[in-house]
């Protein structure tokens, strides 16, 4: 018992006091900034293994980007990844960063469904479905609830059953073999419910976008409430995204 108290004392306070202003350590690759420098645009477009970059004007789609940093390495005068981790959005177009655009990626409160603010502002229970996820986003979702990031202090938690959930969080490109279980899980979640896509694989299919083994038809059927990009998404991106979706008002 005394030893446990000693350990507690040694550990001190581990939680991040304010997750909305915490700094991501090191050379974290968050929101990119594309400046107006002239480069060979076709070379720039070709360098991206995920076709996330398009030309004239140069745009970078965070929903397709794997944040490998290859473009910034080859064209440092054109693209630069900042450590800004607040890159979640509720509109797909907001994830496309344009040339000369240095504005933050934000959630548009006008587009957030009324019941989300009304019902989930103080408590949001989510069911996670990994549908071909490589266990990296699942890892970071778990990390979002560890003693440091401590997402549950905001009333946001993962629950064991869709029956207890207010929405589902999908990771992975959605494999053919998971298409049916995903649908069953969604149907089992009571209304009103939200859908959150976490990670590049879930948002666009990522490197698996043209794989014959995936089936993304589920996503065509429903309105997506939140996109959280990353490969994997950083816990701070996840927490800030969910907080902004449920709490940010007009």
């Amino acid at each position, binding site marked *: 018992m005394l030893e*446990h108290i000693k350990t507690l004392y040694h550990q001190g306070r581990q939680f991040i006091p304010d997750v909305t202003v915490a700094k*991501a350590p090191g050379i974290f690759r968050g929101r990119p900034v594309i400046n107006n420098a002239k480069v060979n645009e076709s070379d720039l477009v070709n360098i991206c293994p995920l076709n996330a970059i398009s030309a004239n004007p140069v745009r970078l789609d965070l929903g397709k980007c794997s*944040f490998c940093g290859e473009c910034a390495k080859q064209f440092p005068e054109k693209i630069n990844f900042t450590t800004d981790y607040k890159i979640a959005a509720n509109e797909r177009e907001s994830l496309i960063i344009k040339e000369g655009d240095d504005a933050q990626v934000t959630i548009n409160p006008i587009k957030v469904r009324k019941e989300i603010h009304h019902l989930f502002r103080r408590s949001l229970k989510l069911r996670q479905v*990994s549908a071909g996820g490589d266990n990296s986003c699942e890892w970071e979702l778990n990390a979002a609830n560890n003693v440091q990031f401590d997402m549950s202090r905001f009333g946001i938690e993962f629950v064991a059953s869709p029956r207890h959930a207010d929405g589902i969080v999908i990771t992975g490109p959605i494999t053919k*073999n998971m298409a049916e*279980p995903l649908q069953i899980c969604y149907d089992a979640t009571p209304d009103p419910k939200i859908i959150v896509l976490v990670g590049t694989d879930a948002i666009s299919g990522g490197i698996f976008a043209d*794989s014959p083994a995936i089936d993304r038809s589920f996503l065509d059927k429903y309105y997506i409430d939140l996109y959280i990009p990353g490969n994997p998404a950083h816990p701070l991106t996840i927490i800030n995204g969910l907080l902004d979706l449920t709490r940010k008002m007009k």
Partner: protein
Amino acid sequence: MKYTTVINNQCIPISQIPENSYDAFFELNVGFITDSSERHCVNYFGYPVSGNIKLICCIANDQSHDIHISSCLVKPTDILTSMSSKIFCFEKFEREIHENFGILFKGHPWLKPVRYGHDRADTLQTIANYPFYAIQSEELHEVGVGPIHAGVIEPGHFRFICNGEQILHLEIQLGYQHRGIESLFLRKKKLSERVQIAESIAGDNVVGHTLAFAAVWESLCGFRAPEELDFSRTIALELERIAIHTGDLSAACTDVAYQLGSAVFGRLRTPIINFLQEWCGNRLAKGLIRPGCNQYPFTSFLAFRLKEVLDAFEPDFDEVRRELFKMPSALSRFERTGTVTLADTLSIGSVGIAARASGLSRDIRSSHPHALFKGLKHAPIIKHHGDVYSRLQIRKQEVPQSINYLRELMHRIPECNNDKEPLGSPEPDSFAISLVEGWRGEICHCAVTDTQGELVMYKVKDPSFHNWMALAMAVRNNEISDFPICNKSFNLSYCGHDL
């Protein structure tokens, strides 16, 4: 009975692999494994060659540190004698070959689908009607779990047959995570695309799988990695091991309701993965390893930072590890739970932690050393009880061992050389094999090129491919309430298996 012998990361012309009749191929490979625990099958697969199927079997010999490779050409309509009827460890490989090409194996216990791949031979079989083993009895009941689990983890279905609270039998059905990885390696032509596929094989084992891919690619191209490259790869592989082992100890604490241990081990993982982010910009080291180039050289400043991180990590890790392993309420849950005998381990062909916990010394770092492991003279940590306790003990001891390796390596940081040898392109008509000891165990990647030097076959084998069967054996005669702790003690990959 002809075969050729190669060492880890060697590339040979495909014509150098002798072709046997199936009978000779059978005798040869069954003979290799029979009564010799130092040999095991690291990969056995087929690929189409002008209407026929070429089977290639790779048997690693841990004593002579080399790999015996043999091949055989068969027709998809052939009915072959099953090697599993003699040696059980071929069981899953044969199921996979049957699922992909329709070849029948006579004498195989049950040719069930492995993963319901998109390119399987029989598309009438679907994941929804998997043929489970069942026992008709008034006393027994079945418990089905998954594919979607209660926690935030990957999907897979577990079907238990229970006698009251006791598990009589467990069948693990996978395939839900199948993304077509192996066929994507052939479809995507750019190296930058292929390396991202390798990084996505298993997101919790990014360094291990990307390292295996890089080694296969470099040996196909005839590129010899300079010391600085080997150095940063060795560091990364051991950092990944430390991070995941620590996380696994946290998960084990969660499952025995030891809250403090769970919180402390959980938070201790963070500085290690944050260091990876400082180094390469990603907490799971995605983007760090690229064939033929050192994306993020390990500088002396990074070495200084890593020493700081490890100095802070070690005392905290030691403190909580001491408490966990002397607490009776935790030990009573770990000891004699989920036991796998040495005989079963050998028969399954387990690798990595699962093998070492049952007294079987299988560790690529010492048996087929790659990168800088030759110089480190790695001595595998072996336990003998084969229970949850043994598997956790291995993690508890491998963390300080890896920290010592990191400290030893950092005494001499190789200079970053700027005039690099270009990577080149893959040799035509060649075969390359790479073995890497990831934190779970042995990862094996194989590749074959055509006359143009283009990939015609890429085969990935995650350690989970063998070890899922070990989990199924471990839970027999245990209470079903002990399943989570058994499962966590293996921590196997779903996506690495399903590909």
